[in-house]
């Protein structure tokens, strides 16, 4: 599903990703773990299509389609979704309006008809109920004044609504207490399927107790330095990242 080959990325002249290669087949849940500054968030932004990164070499393909010459919105319409580590607040834009604009913009790019409003409302309400999101939150401006947990639940709601085939979860656990983490993880697990792949980016093993990955990749200094099964996460929890930092250096 997602194929990254020899990716080199710089920001303001500083190299962040240094020949990273990664393959995530359909239906797989892959975790990427790594220390601060290893380039995990950069990787998620570059895949999603943020403009201020300079890709100097390599390729990213989703379902065989080259993503690098696509805008962020086009990538979303191709089925890519990023759960933000820090979801943005958008004052003055009601959550419902935002959700409808996103869904219909994607459908339009895929040459699909706009979703009828009653169908849309029904889907949003059902998804919101599963995530313990009260209806009045949907009337408020996007994420404005929401708690950390509410913002993350709103991310998962968007994911459920937009039904991406590839989702990147960038530090889903940051800012979440145990109860909120469980609700979000349950929401994500409900979306696991043979056709959908997930890339779970995290510092800590804890999140992977709730979203159990098929594979774990360790990232250090801009590339994947080791890959293994879920047990690799437990090992890292004990030994830390020190070995990998020195290895890469």
């Amino acid at each position, binding site marked *: 599903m997602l194929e990254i080959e020899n990716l080199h990325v710089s920001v303001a002249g500083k190299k962040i990703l240094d020949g990273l290669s990664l393959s995530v087949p359909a239906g797989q849940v892959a975790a990427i773990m790594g220390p601060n500054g290893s380039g995990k968030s950069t990787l998620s932004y570059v895949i999603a299509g943020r403009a201020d990164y300079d890709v100097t070499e390599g390729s990213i393909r989703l379902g065989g389609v080259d993503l690098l010459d696509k805008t962020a*919105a086009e990538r979303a319409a191709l089925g890519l979704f990023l759960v933000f580590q820090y979801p943005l607040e958008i004052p*003055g834009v009601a959550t419902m309006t935002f959700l409808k604009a996103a869904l219909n*913009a994607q459908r339009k790019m895929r040459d699909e008809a706009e979703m009828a409003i009653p169908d849309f409302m029904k889907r949003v309400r059902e998804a919101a109920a599963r995530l313990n999101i009260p209806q009045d939150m949907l009337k408020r401006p996007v994420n404005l004044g929401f708690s950390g947990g509410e913002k993350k639940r709103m991310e998962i709601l968007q994911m459920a609504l937009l039904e991406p085939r590839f989702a990147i979860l960038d530090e889903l656990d940051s800012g979440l207490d145990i109860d909120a983490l469980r609700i979000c993880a349950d929401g994500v697990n409900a979306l696991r399927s043979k056709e959908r792949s997930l890339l779970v980016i995290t510092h800590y093993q804890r999140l992977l107790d709730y979203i159990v990955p098929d594979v774990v990749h360790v990232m250090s200094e801009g590339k994947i330095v080791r890959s293994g099964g879920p047990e690799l996460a437990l090992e890292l929890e004990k030994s830390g990242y020190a070995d990998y930092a020195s290895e890469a250096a």
Partner: protein
Amino acid sequence: MGAPLKNPTQAEQDFLREFALLLDKAPGDAAERQAAFDRFARAGLPSRRVESWHYSDLRVKLRQASPLAEPPDHVSLDYARAELEKVAAPGALKLVSIDGFFAPDLSDDFSRVAGVEIRPLAALSNDRATLALQADDPLLDLNGAFSPGGLTIEIAAGISLEKPIEIVALCGANGGRSRFSRVHVVLGEGARASLIETRAEGFGGFGDSALLLSLGKAAELDYACRSRDSATVDVQTCVVSLEAGARLCATALVAGAAFLRRQLFVTCAGEKAELHLSAASMLTGQEHADITLVVTHQAPACLSRETFKFVLAEQAEGVFQGKIVVPPQAQKTDGKMVCRGLLLSDDASLQAKPELEIFADDVACGHGAACGKLDANQLFYMESRGIPRPEAQAILIQAFAAEAFDILRDESLRDLLNADLAALLQTGAFA
């Protein structure tokens, strides 16, 4: 002929000549017109040396005065009728003017609307004089000298109007004229109404319009100005007086402003009057809009809130001058004024000059002004959800500007302005 013009510009000489021709045939009190013209002549067209006109140098901008507009003929009437179809708000009671002349043929029949009376303004010349005296401005004087009659809309005490009244100002088929218009809206004690002012006069020339609003005790008015398109040089003056306990919520959506000065002079004349003022100015190309307001708290315990938004693309220039005046007797005044600019290009500019003049010691007044760009993080967030950048920008701009309309209590007016704004953004002028 009265006062001397010192070193008159071509435009001032043109006005002098036109006024001499007009005086004999104009309706109303000739002496009053002459006095208004004399006051204008003493001041002359304001230049940048006049502090309150510093950022909109009319003396330079108005090189010559276009010929005075004539009453509309049938060609103009047909032209305006077609325009009216395009711009009129649905469901409102319309009062239409063409080049400043009231056009009964295009207007609704008010004779069956209970509690509303439409009269020629001349019949209320005393009121007009009283109200206009509160605003000392040469362009208001020029309007007084030249405006062809004008209208008074009187809403009787205790009346609550169901439908909004819409004043529609259109151009005739001959562009490039000097147009003057004057409307006085009077609300009796406890009356409630919604007023829409739709201005679509972007057919060259010069415009100088005046809207006078008198709110009686505890009267309530929602007022939405849609300045869609204005003359090459355009001055809109709004003079407001609020009696005790009256409430005015007044906003404007300004677009298509080649060179516009929109000035508001508000007097809170009675205790506990409440004023909510705002505007969203959407400017692009070489457009220039100057929003100037003076709010005077004559009486104690009045409240005023001012929120002014500017969205500026390309080389557009926005000007905001807001002054809140609190004389010694106006204790317990509560005034807050905010101006916010969204700059979409490096060449756009906003001059913001908020001022407080406070002579009372027990008041709560404040002001703020800020300028910024669209937030790149918000844009990326929306794009990552599949919303293409132009659409994401439009959503953010709409959210920014539409905040100005939140002050309206009449939802139908708010919806109207939001729809106007959305249509404007859809044109791609701010993409």
